[in-house]
């Protein structure tokens, strides 16, 4: 493992949300934090990170940043 994992900022599209987000990949899990409400994702089952398709696994409100949600995603097969 590298000493510091600063993640990356990326353009993401999930449901009706399109915009910048923080993306972290660690231990095979990819999480995405963005300023949105769960309703903005609608019934989306997936989306894109920098144009690459991902399947949406879970959506949770951020526990530390108000108005932010955290997506757990995995690469689309």
């Amino acid at each position, binding site marked *: *493992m*590298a*000493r*510091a*994992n*600063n*993640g*990356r*900022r990326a353009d993401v599209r999930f449901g009706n949300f399109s915009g*910048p*987000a*923080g*993306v*972290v990949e*660690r231990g095979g*899990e990819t*999480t*995405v*934090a*963005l*300023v949105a409400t769960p309703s903005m994702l609608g019934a989306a089952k997936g989306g894109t990170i920098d144009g690459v398709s991902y399947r949406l696994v879970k959506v*949770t409100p*951020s*526990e*530390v*940043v108000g108005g*932010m949600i*955290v997506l757990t995603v995995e690469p689309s097969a």
Partner: protein
Amino acid sequence: MAIPANAARFTGALDPEEVLDYIVPIGPLLEAGETIDPDPDRWSLTLLAEAVALGLEILESDPDWPDPALVVGDTRFVNNTAIKFWARVDPAFQDNAAFAAGVALPMEATCWTSSNPPRRRQRTFLLNVVEQ
């Protein structure tokens, strides 16, 4: 992964225009004589997604600040039982409204230890960023 309710907070808030050093104390998780494995591939600091989204950065490979490193020669800590790093907010994010009221940004420290067999320890820490 959920952020634990008992996640420790670093003392001292970071103003979004500051560059400050912090120490992650792993010692309380270790047994007597046990240390963090000093192999750089055996320990890491990872920002969680919210911290990345708001521009927090752990400085690494920067010409002006040292990389994250295990603490050695500091009388407050047993050698190789704590991790020192430097942090800042990306200048493009320093005016984010979230910092006016202050926000606790999460990061995770992970390490293998010197025990045989080695233990893998992991803790979440919160770094307060607030305009001051």
